[in-house]
């Protein structure tokens, strides 16, 4: 499907862009009701948690619960580091280093 890659990428680009674009255009010009503002205020914390937690406690396809895996063990000190320092770059570097070491210990 060599020549089709460009079309595929274009299709992926369009379906990714639309959900990013529509709410900005539709919502940024109006006064939102208080309940909606509150709901949107919880979106960041909720979406990040919904992304990260399944990623560190499940594995495989179909997904299975796997609590004792390096990703979760490493996440605990990484979380504490992030909490204390609030440094994104530092957390990424520490996280990678710990995960690398954990990988060596597990094998």
């Amino acid at each position: 499907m060599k020549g089709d890659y460009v079309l595929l990428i274009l299709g992926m680009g369009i379906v990714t862009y639309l959900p990013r674009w529509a709410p900005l255009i539709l919502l940024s010009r109006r006064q939102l009701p208080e309940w909606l503002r509150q709901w949107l205020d919880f979106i960041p914390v909720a979406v990040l948690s919904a992304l990260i937690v399944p990623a560190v406690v499940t594995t495989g396809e179909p997904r299975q619960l796997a609590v004792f895996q390096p990703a979760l063990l490493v996440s605990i000190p990484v979380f504490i580091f992030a909490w204390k320092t609030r440094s994104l770059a530092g957390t990424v570097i520490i996280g990678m280093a710990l995960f690398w070491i954990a990988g060596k210990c597990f094998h």
Partner: protein
Amino acid sequence: MRASHNLWSVMKDGITAAWPICVGYAPIGLAFGVLAQKAGLSPGEIGLMSLLVFAGSAQFIAVSMISGGAAPIPIILTTFTVNLRHLLMSSALAVHLQRLNAGWLSLYAYGVTDESFAMNMTRFREEPWDWRRALVLNHTANLAWIFSTIIGGYGGQFIPAGAFGIDYALPAMFICLLVLQIRGSLYVAVAVIAGLLAVACALLFPGNAYIVAATAAAATVGVFLRKWNGKASKSEETL
């Protein structure tokens, strides 16, 4: 307090805020480039995908589907469901991007990712921050992503699989971004609910709908908790 519109200070603030994201993107982008190249994409196609899609997890999934011989339509549909969460992020960002014209909003929309979203939301809340700085942040991160994926496509085969904990760069970034969003016990509660719901849904159902479902449900519970909390504290005041 208003932020300065001076071009130099706008660029400096935006890039300073973006660089930790770039540190995270570099290893992830390299890893993506390697996989994409193994799946048969040229560095040009890798760059085009990073430019037009600019969504890490969806790109990883698409490339693994390409390797598995999937047809374009299922890949595009999967991309759509994986990236549907941006609908919620853009809605939350809209609150901070009032009075911006459609052209700038359309440009801004392009740069909405998990990382830029979380970073800009933190800044909008905590310091003099504006859409100009947010746009610089978005596009600095975008450039880092495009370049690192292309470099991965060219020379990534020299990096052994799993080296330097590359696979953990993204989870580590998400953990810190999550920490930055927590502003009290109500937010901790919403995070815990979202995490538990997401795990339950991820185990019960295939696909990626669990992200949007758990997020929306947890935010809804948050609104009710806040309402209930507010009433409780009001009645305490009257006592």
